């Protein structure tokens, strides 16, 4: 088995990214779609940190990863507020049933 290097981390992040896309495409529940988005953000963060480790860029990659985490928190809060509002209005969070712009 070859020594763990940059490619190993990139493979892990690619797999996470693919599964995030899969969750976004296939799941009906809006909260599962949010979980897929979080998986994709995590895979992007792994890439940033891996390239920081194996490249010669200083610590900018770590900072961008921190910014991504902060934005993910803000995004999750807003999206869950919207999902709660949808549930209050339509009594469902299945995104294939939420297809009316105005009642």
């Amino acid at each position, binding site marked *: 088995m070859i020594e763990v290097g940059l490619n190993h981390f990139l493979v892990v992040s690619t797999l996470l990214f693919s599964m995030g896309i899969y969750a976004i495409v296939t799941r009906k529940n809006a909260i599962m779609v949010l979980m897929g988005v979080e998986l994709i953000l995590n895979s992007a963060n792994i890439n940033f940190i891996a390239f920081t480790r194996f490249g010669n860029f200083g610590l900018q990659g770590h900072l961008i990863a921190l910014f991504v985490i902060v934005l993910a928190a803000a995004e999750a809060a807003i999206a869950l507020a919207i999902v709660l509002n949808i549930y209050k209005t339509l009594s469902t969070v*299945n995104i294939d049933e939420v297809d009316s712009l105005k009642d």
Partner: protein
Amino acid sequence: MNVYDFIFYLFAAITVLSAFFVVTNRNIVYSAFFLLFTFFGVAGIYVLLGADFVAIVQLIVYVGGILILLLFGVMLTNKITNVEIKTGTINIYPAVIGVGLLSGALLAALITSTWKTFPTEAPLPTTAALGTMLLQEYALVFELLGIILLIALIGAASIARREA
């Protein structure tokens, strides 16, 4: 195979397997709990890459914040009396084909390309350097992030509490 490699494969297996269960499990509460293991595995990978501060932030913000928020979302948008909280799926076969092609293309691209890597030194503590960068070169971004978080807080509260 030294200890570093063994720990990497352990964390990679935890991350990828639990992410797989997240996206395939039909019970949304199980999915949320498998997401916990995914976030822990990603934090372990950050530690292996020498990013101690980011790993701690990942644990605090993702596991302690976002995951709890998602669980609240699950609990508030389902009938709690219904023990089995199922979630339906659509477009399984096109999604499997498309995601398979996408990940295959990405994996082929990154394995066949030769990355210009530099020899890695022993990881140093990053917290002090990150703090200095945040308050000197990146002070504007730091303040903007604070304002974004404030806006998100007010916006989320006002959206969620709006009287229908």
